[in-house]
């Protein structure tokens, strides 16, 4: 026993070192389970406040650009509104039963990106809207043109973190819009505007410029959200699968406005599907 204490006294620095590194390892490992990383993340109130203040300064210098973008969006919406008005007028003439309309399925909430990284393997976005603003875990984020940004992984009262496509932990079940062949979208951490679409079998027809959309087989992403376009078509020599490079729809280097999408009918759909599985 005495030797034991002697040993500790002699090597206490090394023992302390191992102890601290063990804590760090535990933190790193819990981080891989990224849902758990809520409190040690940029959704944390202190960290978010600092980033919000930083973004406040940056906003001031970017006002002119943002105004231009908003004006352009306004214009596009105006056009859409006009078109819908016309369609409505046509429909009023036809017989139209109100009970045939579907209930509203998705609610969109706009949020501002106050922090984002693009130069790491595990990139994250932090937004200025949290549970008090209706944002919850597992909701999805799209940009103003409808391109997929990512998935909300943690939300505090006023902030939330988004796991974007450009994070190597992220996998998105996607398909080719034209032919409906399904594959996995993965990010290889090289360019912040490109990802790989894998698992598309070699008998599929793929051309440069084909649209890639979400396949709808994931729990969170509805079918048909725009992901990007095929920019390079290669053959995986061994597997009989394509190795496709996808130019992402979202420009992660300058993503600023995002919409958080809530699926009002998700619960109903899940209950139905789990009911089916039991039988």
């Amino acid at each position, binding site marked *: 026993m005495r030797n034991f204490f002697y040993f500790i006294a002699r090597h*206490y620095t090394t023992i302390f070192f191992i102890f601290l590194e063990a804590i760090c390892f535990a933190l790193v490992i819990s981080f891989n389970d990224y849902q758990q990383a809520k409190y040690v993340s940029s959704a944390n109130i202190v960290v978010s406040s600092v980033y919000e203040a930083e973004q406040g300064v940056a906003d001031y210098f970017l006002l002119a650009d943002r105004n231009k973008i908003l004006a352009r969006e306004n214009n596009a919406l105006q056009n859409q509104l006009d078109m819908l008005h016309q369609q409505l007028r046509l429909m009023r003439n036809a017989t139209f039963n109100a009970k045939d309309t579907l209930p509203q399925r998705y609610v969109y909430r706009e949020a501002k990106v106050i922090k984002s990284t693009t130069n790491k393997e595990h990139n994250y976005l932090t937004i200025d809207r949290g549970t008090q603003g209706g944002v919850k875990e597992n909701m999805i984020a799209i940009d103003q043109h409808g391109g997929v940004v990512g998935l909300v992984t943690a939300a505090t009262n006023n902030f939330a973190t988004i796991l974007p496509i450009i994070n190597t932990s992220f996998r998105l079940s996607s398909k080719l819009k034209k032919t409906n062949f399904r594959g996995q979208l993965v990010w290889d951490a090289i360019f912040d505007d490109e990802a790989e679409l894998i698992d598309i079998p070699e008998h599929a027809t793929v051309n440069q410029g084909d649209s890639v959309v979400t396949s709808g087989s994931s729990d969170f992403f509805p079918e048909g959200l725009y992901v990007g376009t095929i920019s390079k078509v290669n053959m995986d020599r061994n597997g009989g699968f394509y190795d496709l490079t996808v130019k992402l729809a979202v420009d992660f280097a300058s993503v600023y406005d995002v919409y958080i999408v809530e699926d009002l009918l998700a619960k109903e759909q899940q209950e139905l599907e789990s009911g089916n599985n039991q039988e």
Partner: protein
Amino acid sequence: MANSQNVIRLGVLFVILLALQVLVFNNLNFLGYVNPYPYILLLLTMPFGVSTAFLMVVGFVLGFSVDMFCNTPGMHAGACVLLSYVRPYILKFISLHDDYKIGTLPTLYTYDASWYLKYVLMGVGVHHIVLFAFEQIDTILWWPTLLRMLLSAAATVILIYVSQFFVRIGGGSAK
């Protein structure tokens, strides 16, 4: 240990370096590869003879603070703790003929430029290798990761070296 003046200086340095790291250097994205981490200047500037345990605690707190801002729990903390642990060995390895004067700060002006460059190179090397190993363990031997690590380390070394011309913390020579 350090005198009270040094404690205040190092406390201020802690806050300044943390702020610069998260507000300025983490936003650098030169060519998509370079993200320097000059905040470790704090650990390199702690006085000679400071207890390794204390240095590791400072390293842990500093690294953990950076982690919170980078969404990388444990990674910077782990790299900083290791850097703190090996710092005495680095100092021993590059020591000149006489012993270090306990309580003075290792800066560019303590000895000569080549001694300081060796010190910073080794410190930054240890920190960056461990950090990138933590962060990107599955692709650490792959050229984009290695390139990212080398360029980031080079940028960190340059920034730390240049910083010495702006602030003469602890000034004076130990000779």
